[in-house]
């Protein structure tokens, strides 16, 4: 599609061509191309939202004062349910790796939970709890915990056995044992799994808000969808994407990298 330009143009033109093949230029070309193609498709079709229309809609929404309350509410829900996911996932995953009986006990349950799509939970929660706060809390937990459990389980199985034996022999207190040995050794697995869990939980949250809530970003998307305003739907979808990308890029990726720092230079990484 786009091979590196191998032009043999005269000197001034070549510096242009050389600039055009740099990484930065390539990135901006891709972004620009995407926007232009999207706008072109949107103009040609009546159903598809355009980027310009979407931005206009978002500005309108902010002017109406509907933007921040809904978004912050969704973020609050996500924060609460994801902290529960973190605690539950680490506890279950560690226990599965520590005692093989627990591991066997939860094995198939985790497999089944991983296989279940979040939208079924969202529909069930709509039927069971209606538009209450229970659904937006429970569904992300159900959807995201198995991912973290699976990853932590791998981490718990790979804990350094000699160190565990030594800390038992020297009777290291439990708190220090966990804080200094178990958690740091598992942290690369935990953070890798947590990134996935956050993605899954965020998706599940937006689904359950779409189906079974009357407050939050997903609800606004559903509202504009029902009203037939596709720019509005796209706008809120875009907001959800931007938020999750920002969280993933700025927070989680850095944490994951930091958690792997002590392993740098070792063979496995």
């Amino acid at each position, binding site marked *: 599609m786009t091979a590196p330009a191998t032009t043999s143009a005269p000197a001034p033109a070549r510096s242009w061509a050389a600039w055009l093949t740099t990484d930065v230029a390539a990135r901006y070309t891709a972004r620009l191309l995407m926007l232009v193609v999207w706008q072109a498709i949107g103009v040609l079709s009546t159903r598809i939202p355009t980027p310009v229309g979407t931005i206009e809609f978002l500005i309108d929404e902010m002017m109406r004062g509907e933007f921040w309350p809904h978004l912050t509410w969704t973020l609050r829900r996500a924060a609460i349910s994801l902290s529960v996911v973190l605690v539950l996932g680490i506890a279950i995953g560690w226990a599965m790796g520590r005692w*093989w009986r627990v591991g066997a006990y*939860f094995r198939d349950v985790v497999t089944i939970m991983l*296989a279940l799509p979040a939208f079924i939970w969202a529909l069930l929660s709509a039927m069971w709890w209606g538009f209450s706060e229970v659904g937006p809390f429970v569904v992300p937990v159900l959807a995201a915990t198995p991912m973290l459990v*699976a990853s932590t389980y791998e981490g718990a199985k790979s804990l350094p056995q000699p160190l565990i034996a030594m800390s038992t022999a020297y009777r290291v207190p439990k708190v220090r044992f966990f804080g200094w040995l178990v958690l740091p050794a598992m942290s690369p697995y935990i953070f890798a799994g947590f990134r996935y869990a956050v993605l899954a939980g965020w998706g599940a949250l937006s689904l359950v808000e779409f189906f079974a809530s009357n407050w939050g970003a997903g609800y606004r998307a559903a509202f504009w969808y029902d009203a037939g305003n596709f720019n509005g739907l796209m706008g809120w979808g875009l907001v959800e994407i931007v938020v999750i990308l920002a969280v993933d890029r700025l927070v989680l990726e850095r944490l994951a990298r930091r958690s792997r720092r002590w392993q740098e230079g070792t063979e496995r990484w």
Partner: protein
Amino acid sequence: MSLAPSTRRLLASQFYSVAGIATFIGIWAYASSRMEHYVLPSPWTVGKRMVELAQSGAVLTNFVDSLWRTILGWLIAVVIGSVIGFLMGRYRYARAFFHDLIYLAANVPLIVYAIVAIIVFGISGMGPTSVVILFVLPSIALNVAAGMMSVDPDLVGMSKAFNRSRFDLARHVVIPTVMPFAFAAGRVSFADSWKLAALVETFGGSSGVGYQIGRSYHLFSVRDVLAWMCIFVIFVVLLERLVLVNAEHRLFRWRADTPQRNRRWRGASKAAAPAEPVSTSAVETVMRK
């Protein structure tokens, strides 16, 4: 099965995992006995309904519909994704060009995909297929690119020194290195793309598993939703365990004795998304057991 040093232990672990499922069904049965039957039907009612659905042939036709759409989208995505991944692994410009697009496509929440498909395609079979393409493409492309970048440069140099043709090089060096990467990506994404296809059908399909689930929801029948959900899980697990694992064993029999982990890590650490293979393989190993 590193878990089991002896057969007794293996049997015991089987016993525990059955006990785990039995516990959950027990909780379900208890809860349903305390609630109205239309809020939470008992496991037996749902089981009976599942048998009914299976006997009427509804299960088979709907699953074939969904599966066909998923496979079609998945195949198209594999072809396009391999090409993009090849370009990304080969040319620096392509890597920078596709990086943001693929990152974006990989992080769009599934619901957004589903809704966009409904807007664009309305109620037709094209919706699930096209969304599956968009969804599977990034992971295939990223993994193929990682595979391309992990091709051993010494082997490439040697085959050039011995005047091997490019076809030989591709066949004996590049493709064997890239295949495991591509297969890992395809396997993981297949399970998810199947869920996504069902989601799109829930919103606006005219047939398929997702459509049936959505219809049961609109009829407010918890029993039917649960029945379809259980059938769905059974299909996913069966597909994972029987078909894909066997195919993987057969494809990679030749490197059964090589330390596959090291190979993957070395390539993966250079890839665009270093954290990804960790959790992917973790999820995978759990699924496989």
